[in-house]
């Protein structure tokens, strides 16, 4: 990925050559029988207030990468910089202080909240810990934060089990943003939610980002959500980024065969739109990655060279692509950008008008507490 321009502010997050290897141990003596390279030499950056999406299928290493970027797990090699400051060498105390600026939202809002803490306690803890509030004003700040996340003041005294999944995810978002972080890793934050609730959380994440200017590293397997929320997209396959480009570019001109495969496989909301080529086979095991290009066993374009030589990320048009044949990528049949079809658009407009008339159009009332 291109380095930051000289003189410009450093990106909120920059990862350089990140590697994370897990040992695989078997047997009574837990002998090391192999290693999984979950993340292999990954570099990327996310600008302040920007959203970079990491997409890929189960096991591609996207969640591991997100955690390694926060040093929630220690990277095996490589460096992470937050606002230009290296996190890699920070001693535990300093790392702890730096956590104020880097937060995470998890997929499962059930598992991510302490069931024995009230919402108020959950939200107050990070603010008190990082000295952003004191016993006197923490209550006000919790209420402001709840309001910003579309919740009511009386929710503060309740426990996680008293909420629906969507409300719990609102609490997860509120907790992550309580310290007004510079970077939030969003690890599949809407994957477990129903579509109407998913829309609420996506809107909330966008509103709060506009408000506090945090960078989002948005990990997801859902390309529709990614297209909606991200400014740039990085596609991962078996531990490596195989393509990265601005969102409009990658959806209009996917250059890596794997990116095209992912895009074709995503269901469209139009009956009869399907013209996809289904690629057979599962992703290979990360314990025994194929030689050469890891995608070659499933790739419709693979040639002898792909089985031997691993392609490096290189600039092609507006994208960085790791494919020997990126230049030869077929021009996609232009899927005419689908405006909302006539009748549906009119119905949506009618519904919007009715909502405005009854005052249902709620937006976050107040900003989160200033840090």
């Amino acid at each position, binding site marked *: 990925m291109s380095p930051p321009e000289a003189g410009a502010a450093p990106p909120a997050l920059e990862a350089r050559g990140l590697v994370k290897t897990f040992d695989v141990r078997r047997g009574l003596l837990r002998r090391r029988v192999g290693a999984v390279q979950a993340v292999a030499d990954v570099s990327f950056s996310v600008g302040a207030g920007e959203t970079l999406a990491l997409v890929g*299928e*189960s096991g591609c290493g996207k969640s591991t990468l997100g955690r390694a970027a926060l040093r929630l797990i220690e990277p095996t090699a490589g460096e992470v910089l937050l606002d230009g400051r290296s996190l890699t060498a920070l001693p535990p105390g300093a790392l702890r202080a730096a956590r104020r600026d880097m937060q995470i939202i998890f997929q499962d809002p059930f598992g991510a909240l302490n069931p024995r803490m009230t919402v108020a306690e959950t939200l107050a803890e990070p603010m008190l810990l990082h000295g952003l509030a004191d016993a006197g004003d923490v209550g006000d700040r919790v209420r402001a934060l709840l309001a910003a996340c579309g919740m009511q003041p009386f929710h503060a005294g309740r426990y996680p089990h008293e909420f*629906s*999944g969507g409300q719990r995810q609102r609490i997860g978002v509120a907790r992550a943003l309580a310290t007004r972080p510079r970077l939030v890793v969003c690890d599949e934050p809407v994957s477990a939610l*129903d*579509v*109407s*609730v*998913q*829309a*609420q959380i*996506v*809107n909330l994440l*966008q509103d709060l980002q506009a408000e506090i200017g945090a960078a989002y590293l948005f990990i997801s*397997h859902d*390309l*529709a959500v990614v*297209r*909606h*929320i991200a400014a740039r997209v990085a596609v991962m396959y078996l531990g490596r980024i195989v393509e990265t480009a601005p969102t*409009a570019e990658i*959806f209009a001109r996917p250059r890596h065969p794997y990116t095209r*495969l*992912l895009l*074709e*496989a*995503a*269901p*469209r*909301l*139009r*009956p009869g*739109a399907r013209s*996809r080529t*289904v*690629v*057979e*086979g*599962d*992703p290979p095991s990360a314990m025994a990655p194929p030689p050469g290009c890891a995608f070659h066993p499933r790739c419709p374009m693979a040639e002898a060279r792909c089985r031997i030589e691993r392609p490096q990320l290189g600039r092609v048009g507006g994208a960085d692509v790791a494919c020997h044949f990126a230049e030869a990528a077929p021009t996609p049949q232009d*899927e005419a*950008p*689908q*405006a*909302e*079809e006539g*009748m*549906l658009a*009119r*119905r*949506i*407009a*009618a*519904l*919007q*008008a*009715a*909502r405005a*008339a009854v005052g*249902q159009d709620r937006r976050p009332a107040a900003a989160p507490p200033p840090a």
Partner: protein
Amino acid sequence: MTEAPLLSVEDLRVHFRVEGRVYRAVDGVSFAVERGRTLGVVGESGCGKSVTSLAVMRLVQTPPGVYAGGRVMFDGVDLLTLSARRMRALRGGRMAMIFQEPMTSLNPVYTVGDQIAESLAAHAGLKGAAARARVTELLELVRLPSAAKRASDYPHQLSGGQRQRVMIALALANDPDLLIADEPTTALDVTIQAQVLDLIGDLRARTGAGVLLITHDLGVVAETCDAVAVMYAGRVVETAPVAALFADPQHPYTVGLMAAVPRVDAARGRLETIEGSVPPPWSTAPGCRFASRCPLADARCRAEAPPLAAVSPGHAVACWRAPIEAAA
């Protein structure tokens, strides 16, 4: 069509009695599945779509569940009146089900081949070499690589996509007339989802089975179904041929759902949300169950439940205000 549909669910009611309250999980649901066609039942968590599918197989646990009314007509017979023994003969035989979680639906201590062979023995009396040959044939049919060898694998040795293929092979073992798939691809990656959906479509075309597909994903509905029933809070609020539903959605909930989904084929502005939440399943409030969240709701909506009424051939809507128009 003069022929009776393969499956016809008529005013089905499934309630649960829990702690002195009656949960009306399915409350007057009707739809039909034709031979060789796929009906999608779509809705959000708690709308009753899974209970409906379980009720069709008569797998709702009773108690606490109660079949409180209606009929499930399968090829002319009301399944709700069948003896347990005859019902057992149908399950895995002429009607089969694929569940969302292939890991928990397969028995971890038997090989996948043995599990398929068990079903063959129970329904078709196939044993020994004949059964083994049929197992291999089925696993090849679902395109499991090196099928004969895989038959002696245990479920944990297979990937998620492979396990779901085994589930499908198991469901198809006795050439069912009706295949019920409850969120069959929800736990799978998109490329694997595409493979599994194509597989179900191919098999339907080959065998002429009817498919009842339960899903929360409107994209999956658009791509694989012939007809759709949209469920909300235990009721069908709209049902239509798939093209009609997407071209001309009429119920405010259907429109709201379509407006809430981000699209992979188009950039879209701020997502629409559906404010409020589903009424509790024990609610006995009269009127339309969507009224509390519907910006168009008026006094009649709150007082009187709208019936599912036809607006064009095959397209019916349960809404007093449908079709919603800008003038409204």
